[in-house]
């Protein structure tokens, strides 16, 4: 595959600039300090809606976050990922993850990051997971597929039947580049063409290609079902690109998006929007209920968002991948906070898109 010559604009991460919001505790304090209307206590809101406490229904998705390293610095990134980060999953932790997989029948491995492909253990995890017969999802930023040293990735992913779930906020360049960095849209389109050529997104190949759109600003996402047909038409007529499905997800008030909300003066109104849009019907399908999230260092969390906020599992639950206990985790109580309103607003939001 050709290497892209297009230069992407990247910025320093919050971590690099010593921004106080690089610290999880500071993020939680900020969210909790907002003067929101009644109903902004997530657990109480569940109770009022007759839903009791949020509890897992099992572990169907084994989500591994391979680290914070990325070739992009998207403005809404809840990981604060970027080229200046160093955190990567080690072989030791990766092997512990694969042992867990071998000892259980968890059907899906969901690989995320950062740009997970930049972790040296990425290919090992894909190869082992597929060898064990599991469905593998790569949460891909697209531009990495054309970066130097990574151009063999598309073929590797296709050969292993990996489902690719990739971010593209809009089918036009403006919003995509504003959110993800100048130049990202053009390279993303190039990467999608390469994936299409390999059979991704084409009917009958079994190679699923999912696009993920999220708002470029402080508002809720468009209804997934209402825009998928438009997106398919626009991507086909404008760029001759096909894809399998469109996910529409809500931006989470965590890390860089939280920093942007605060600095742009949108934080309180955005949080109030999420609280006001709380939808009891969206609660059932939130991802934490059937997912376990593993950090680059092997720590366990309810979801990738809790991982970034360093909200570890409820007391009594295993802390590390080495102590994985499927039966205990399968009906655990989920640790919640105000950020959880991001997953229950409107049509709901999860790594699989809308929840209703």
């Amino acid at each position: 595959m050709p290497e892209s010559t297009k230069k992407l604009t990247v910025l320093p991460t919050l971590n690099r600039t010593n921004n106080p919001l690089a610290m999880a505790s500071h993020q939680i304090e900020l969210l909790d300090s907002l003067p929101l209307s009644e109903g902004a206590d997530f657990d109480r809101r569940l109770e009022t809606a007759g839903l009791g406490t949020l509890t897992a229904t099992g572990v169907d998705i084994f989500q591994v976050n391979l680290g914070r390293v990325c070739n992009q610095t998207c403005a809404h990134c809840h990981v604060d990922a970027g080229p200046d980060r160093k955190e990567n999953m080690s072989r030791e932790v990766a092997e512990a993850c694969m042992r867990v997989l071998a000892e259980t029948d968890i059907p899906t491995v969901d690989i995320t990051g950062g740009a997970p492909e930049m972790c040296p253990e990425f290919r090992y995890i894909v190869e082992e997971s597929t060898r064990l017969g599991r469905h593998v999802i790569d949460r891909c930023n697209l531009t990495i597929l054309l970066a130097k040293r990574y151009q063999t990735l598309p073929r590797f992913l296709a050969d292993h039947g990996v489902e690719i779930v990739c971010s593209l906020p809009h089918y036009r360049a403006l919003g995509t580049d504003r959110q993800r960095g100048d130049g990202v849209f053009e390279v993303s389109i190039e990467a999608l063409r390469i994936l299409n050529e390999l059979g991704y997104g084409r009917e009958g190949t079994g190679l699923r290609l999912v696009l993920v759109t999220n708002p470029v600003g402080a508002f809720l996402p468009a209804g997934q079902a209402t825009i998928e047909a438009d997106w398919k038409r626009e991507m086909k007529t404008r760029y001759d690109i096909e894809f399998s499905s469109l996910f529409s997800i809500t931006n989470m008030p965590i890390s860089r998006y939280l920093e942007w909300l605060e600095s742009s003066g949108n934080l309180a109104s955005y949080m109030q929007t999420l609280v006001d849009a709380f939808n009891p019907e969206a609660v059932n399908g939130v991802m934490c209920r059937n997912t376990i999230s593993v950090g680059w260092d092997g720590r366990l969390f309810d979801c990738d968002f809790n991982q970034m906020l360093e909200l570890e599992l409820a007391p009594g639950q295993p802390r590390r991948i080495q102590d994985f206990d499927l039966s205990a985790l399968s009906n655990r109580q989920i640790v919640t906070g105000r950020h959880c309103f991001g997953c229950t607003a409107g049509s709901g939001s999860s790594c699989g898109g809308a929840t209703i």
Partner: protein
Amino acid sequence: MTSYYNPDHLANFHSISEHAPDLGKKFFEWYGAAMEDGALSAREKSLIALGVSHAVQCPYCIEAYTKDALKKGYDVEQLTEVVHVASAIKGGAALIHGMQMRETADGLGM
């Protein structure tokens, strides 16, 4: 009243029903139904509403339908084109009255 336009009016618009509840109820039901998915999608109707908002120069509607159209997945370049369409029709409507001017002037002139 401190100004002719007050942003709170938008949030409190429903209170307009207070002195004519039956008419208010009918208006809001009809308004809601008109904006629902039909032969045109609710997304398409949002853009039409944004264009009309500009044509009738309603600041409440402009705020409401800018937010609505963004939420429905359109970007600011697309919204700007909507405003140009509305402006073109408004401008064209003014200009075509020039034909009336010309006809009158031609009738009177030598």
